[in-house]
């Protein structure tokens, strides 16, 4: 079930990867052959029962999916809504990202490549990639902005323990976007034996579609679990949006359910009005970044503007093109959540449920808290909101500890 590939949004993207005016391929010609090879391998795999069975077994026996849908009663009481948490934080490696890397690592094997490279922000995708590389005996190089290697030192150690080489990137703003540039440069030079295991539903075609399809099991599971639990579909689905893979993963199975509101919560940083944020849809404009046309934080000349978020995993000045399209069509609603709002939700979940969420996922929790009163008023009853708890907060203990001032001074 988690690898069900039937798509409710037929014809989107088109064969060249366009989601309306977004998406496509803005890449050096050197990469086109590899993207075509990947596209062919992916389409073949998605109709190959042996591949799908192998992936499903891995997702079940290794990653621990389907993840639980947990009714968070005490958090719900605070929210004024029935909050159902999709517990992707309980997956192996602690986030939804394991679904994508297992799919892509299997594809890598099928393409006969022996090396994977990845970019990472918070380190979750890097850890997941290093994990899959260990499992599949692939060489693994992870590019990580130098700023992020300091913010997420624990994940750097985890990747190294798993046998990956972590390369701190000192170019540009030294964060996720620069790590992605560096990974692209590596790929251009080593495309013969290397697969670029992109960690989010962005980048050139076919990555946005491929990554979405590998993570869409989140929504397929959540939809059925919600029906089983409540007898109905939820009123709303909420997720955080950086590049946007966890959000697409949980949205996609609900896109055809027009009664289900889809909310994507972007990192509002210190507030969109301050300019220090990572809300590409709310505060950006249409442009081309990292191989795709989408919403981008940029100046008038098309130079990328540095993003800001307390969450390293959302600290990215672009967004997957399918989100840009879902925004334009009005099917999903995107709103910013500030650092402060996210951290308040983080603390609330810790205290009410005994769950330490990733700061990324805390944006989704905060967003659910924000939209709940309006939804309740509109519906005239307590709304049911499925929140994608996309990752666990172990990696954020230091950041959160500093934020709350609860670390003992050395």
């Amino acid at each position, binding site marked *: 079930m988690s690898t069900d590939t039937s798509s409710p949004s037929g014809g989107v993207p088109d064969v*060249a990867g366009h989601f309306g005016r977004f998406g*496509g*391929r*803005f*890449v*050096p*010609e*050197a*990469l*086109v*052959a*590899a993207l075509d090879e990947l596209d062919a391998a992916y389409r073949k795999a998605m109709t190959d029962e042996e591949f799908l069975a192998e992936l499903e077994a891995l997702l079940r026996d290794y990653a621990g999916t389907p993840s639980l849908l947990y009714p968070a009663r005490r958090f719900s009481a605070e929210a004024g809504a029935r909050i159902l948490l999709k517990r992707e934080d309980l997956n192996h490696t602690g986030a939804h990202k394991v679904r994508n890397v297992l799919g892509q690592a299997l594809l890598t094997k099928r393409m006969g490549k022996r090396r994977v490279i990845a970019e990472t922000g918070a380190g979750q995708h890097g850890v997941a990639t290093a994990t899959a590389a260990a499992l599949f005996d692939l060489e693994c190089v992870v590019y990580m902005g130098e700023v992020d290697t300091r913010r997420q030192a624990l994940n750097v150690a985890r990747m190294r323990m798993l046998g990956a080489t972590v390369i701190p990137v000192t*170019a*540009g703003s030294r964060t996720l*976007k*620069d790590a992605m*540039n560096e990974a*692209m*440069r590596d790929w*251009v*030079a*080593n*495309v*013969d034996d290397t697969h670029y295991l992109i960690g989010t539903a962005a980048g050139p075609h076919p990555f946005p579609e491929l990554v979405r399809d590998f993570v869409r099991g989140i929504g397929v599971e959540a939809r059925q679990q919600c029906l089983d639990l409540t007898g109905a579909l939820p009123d709303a689905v909420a997720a955080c949006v950086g590049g946007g893979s966890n959000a697409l993963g949980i949205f996609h199975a609900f896109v055809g359910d027009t009664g289900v509101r889809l909310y994507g919560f972007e990192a509002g940083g210190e507030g969109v009005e301050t300019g220090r944020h990572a809300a590409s849809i709310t505060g950006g404009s249409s*442009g*081309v*970044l*990292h*191989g795709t046309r989408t919403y*981008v934080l*940029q100046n*008038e*000349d*098309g*130079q*990328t503007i540095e993003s800001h978020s307390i969450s390293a995993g959302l600290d990215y000045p672009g967004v997957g093109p399918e989100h840009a399209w879902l925004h334009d069509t009005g099917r999903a609603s995107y709103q910013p959540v500030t650092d402060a709002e996210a951290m308040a939700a983080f603390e609330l979940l810790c205290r009410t449920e005994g769950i330490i969420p990733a700061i990324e996922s805390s944006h989704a929790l905060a967003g659910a808290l924000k939209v709940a009163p309006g939804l309740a008023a509109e519906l005239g009853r307590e709304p049911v909101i499925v929140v994608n708890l996309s990752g666990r907060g172990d990696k954020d203990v230091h950041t959160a500890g500093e934020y709350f001032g609860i670390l003992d001074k050395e």
Partner: protein
Amino acid sequence: MSRIGVAFDKARADGRALLVGCMPAGFPTVEGSIAAMTAMVESGVDVIEVEIPYSDPVMDGPVIQKASDIALAGGVRTADTLRIVEAIAATGAPVVTMTYWNPIEQYGVDAFARDLAAAGGTGLITPDLIPDEAGEWLAASDAYGLDRTFLVSPSSTDGRLKMTVEHCRGFVYATALMGVTGARAQTSQAAPVLVSRVREVTDLPVGVGLGVGTGAQAATVAGYADGVIVGSALVRCVLDGPDLPAGLTALRTLSAELAEGVRNPAR
């Protein structure tokens, strides 16, 4: 035929290749980059490739990245770049621009083509725009009579190579190796093969870039290509110089060495 086409024809008749030298606009400053490009022309560089700096240049290695960062930190704008194009075109040398797609899209594709043509630029090299996504640029470049240079790569299939070359005008850019810009110790084995594949499908001149940094390498590439494109090695002269005058001196020396190389093709 564009000014670049005329220059390539003349070089062919003279039995040599054209030397194309690349420098980011606004590096180290707007005036500094005009001085650098002028020095290159005076020292034998035939065509100036003005790179419009971009914040996320995925086809560029560390040298051009750093130079672009310096230019952007100095506040260079796309409009400044066009002013630089105008200044260099006034020297008589053909001037081609090169940049990633987003700066062009944000300037406005049609407006950029109009202003580039008005500044005397001959065309645009697009490292991350493939013909598949280039509808707007094809129309704008036609409307203003600009050349368009797409890249071909050793990994391009025959079908893509033919399609890409059919959309080029002025010259074709063959990337000598799988990788980003930056001087290499050895010239590429893949480049001569790629150039001959291009020649099977077009009479357009073929320029080879990526990895060329010495006169000897220029002579080697000139042995099989119509144009030798040099970027990082030239940029490094200015980047590594203790000050701009010293950088310009080094730039003149290397330009002259490369110019000598393209005039003595190794056959």
